[in-house]
C-alpha cells in the first residue's frame, strides 16, 4: 500500500466526475420525493394512531411497530423482488412501465421513513396541551377538524427539526438503493472504484458530499431552533 499513487483528477473531472455528479442527483431525487411522500403517509398514520376509532388505531400501531422493527434492506428487497404477488395487476403494469428500481426504492424508503415521521408528529402533538383539543371540541369542531385547524398547525412547527433530521436519515438510507441497482451516490462511488481502482479517491468524494449535506442540514436545524422556536432565549 505504500506505493499507492493518489490521483484526485479521477474524481474532480472527466467521465468519473460526471458519474459522481449524476449519483448526487439521484440521491437528492430519491430523498426529496421520498420525504414528501413519507410526510404525507406519516401524517396520516399519526392521525390514525391518535384517533378514537379503534380499527384505525390498531392499524396504525401495527404499521408503526412492523416497519420500524424490520431492516430497511429487507423491505427494499421485498418491494423489489416480492411485491408483484400481492399488488394488483394494474399497479404491477404501471410499476413495470416506470423505472422500477427507482420506484421500489422510493416505496420502501417512504414506508420505512413514514413510520418514524408518524412518531415524531405524534410526540409533537402530545406536546400541545390537551386543553387545546378540549376547547376545539367544545367549540364544535370534529376530531379531524380540530386536528386540522388547531392542533397540527402548532405541532408541525415543533416537529420541523425532527422532520428535517428524518430527511437527512432518508438521504443516508437511500444508499441502500444501490443493492437493487439504483445509480445513486454510493453506487457511483463503487462504480468509479471498480473501473479505476482509485477507491480511496472515490469514497472520499462521496464521503465529502454526504458530510456537506449532513452538516449544512444540521446547521439549518440549529438556526431554526434559535430563530423560530426560541427567539427570546439568551444565547
Amino acid at each position, binding site marked *: 500500500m505504500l506505493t499507492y499513487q493518489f490521483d484526485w483528477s479521477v474524481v474532480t473531472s472527466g467521465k468519473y466526475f460526471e458519474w459522481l455528479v449524476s449519483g448526487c442527483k439521484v440521491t437528492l431525487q430519491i430523498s426529496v420525493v421520498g420525504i414528501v411522500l413519507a410526510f404525507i403517509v406519516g401524517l396520516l398514520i399519526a392521525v390514525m394512531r391518535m384517533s378514537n376509532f379503534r380499527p384505525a388505531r390498531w392499524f396504525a400501531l401495527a404499521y408503526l411497530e412492523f416497519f420500524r422493527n424490520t431492516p430497511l434492506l*429487507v423491505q427494499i428487497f421485498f418491494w423489489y423482488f416480492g411485491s408483484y404477488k*400481492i399488488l394488483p395487476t394494474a399497479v404491477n403494469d404501471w410499476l413495470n412501465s416506470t423505472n422500477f428500481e427507482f420506484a421500489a426504492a422510493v416505496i420502501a424508503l417512504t414506508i420505512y421513513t413514514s413510520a418514524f415521521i408518524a412518531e415524531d408528529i405524534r410526540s409533537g402533538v402530545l406536546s400541545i396541551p390537551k386543553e387545546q383539543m378540549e376547547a376545539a371540541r367544545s367549540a364544535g369542531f370534529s376530531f379531524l377538524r380540530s386536528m386540522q385547524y388547531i392542533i397540527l398547525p402548532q405541532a408541525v412547527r415543533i416537529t420541523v427539526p425532527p422532520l428535517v433530521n428524518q430527511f437527512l436519515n432518508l438521504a443516508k438510507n437511500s444508499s441502500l438503493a444501490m443493492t437493487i441497482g439504483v445509480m445513486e451516490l454510493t453506487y457511483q462511488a463503487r462504480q468509479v472504484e471498480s473501473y479505476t481502482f482509485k477507491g480511496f479517491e472515490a469514497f472520499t468524494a462521496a464521503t465529502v458530499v454526504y458530510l456537506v449535506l449532513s452538516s449544512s442540514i444540521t446547521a439549518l436545524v440549529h438556526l431554526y431552533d434559535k430563530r423560530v422556536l426560541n427567539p427570546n432565549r439568551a444565547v
Partner: protein
Amino acid sequence: MGELFNFNVITDNFTYFMIGRYPHGPLGGLGLTIYLAVASCILSFFGGLVLGLLSLVRNPFISYPVNLFINAVRGLPLLMVIFWMYFLLPALMGRTVPESQTVIMGLTLFTSAYMSQIVRAGIEGIPAGQTEAAISTGLKHWQVMLYIVLPQGLRNMIPSFVNQFVSLIKDTSLAFIVGVSELTHVATQINNRTMAYPTEIFIFIAVLYFFLCYAFTSLSRWLERRLAWRKAI
C-alpha cells in the same frame, strides 16, 4: 391463497435460514445475524463509553477532534462506513481481513458514535449537585466520574442501549453487501436458487427480524417504565 403462496420454500430450507451450513461449515443465517449484532454491541458499548467520556473532557484539544469525529460518522450512511472498512482495514493491518470482521468493525465504529451520544446525555442528566457534593468530599474528577456519576448515569442509559441494539440487529442486514452469509444474504441466496418464491422468502425473514427486534423494543419500554418508577420513590 393456497395457490398464490407456497411456504414450502421456507420449511424446506429452514435450518439453512437459521444457522447456514453449520456445523458442517461456517455459521450463517439468523445465528450469524445474532452473532454479528451481539459482538458489535459489546464492542460499541465500550467504544461509545470512551468516545462519550472523551467528548466531555474539558481540554478542547481532546474534546474538539473527538466531537468532530463523532459528528462525521453520524453524518455518513452506514454503507459508506462499511465500504471504508472494507477498503482501509487490509491496508492498515497489512493482511486480508475476513468479511465478517470487516462488518463487525464497521458496525462498531458506526454504533459507537451513536452510543457516545447516549453516554453523553446520560452523564449530563445527573444533577450537578452530585458532582459538587462528591468533589467537596475530596474525590478527584476521575473518581467522581467512576464512582458517582457513571453508576447512576449508566443505569438511566440502559433503555437507550437496548434501542441501539435493535438498530444493530437491523443494521447487520448490510453485511449482505460484502458477502457475509447472515440472514438477509441467505434469503437472497435461496431466492436466487429457487426463483419463484421471493414474496414468501422476504415476508418470512421480515417477520423473523420483526419478532427479534420487537422483543427488544418491548424490553426497552419495560425497562424505561421500571426505571421511572424507581426514580419516583
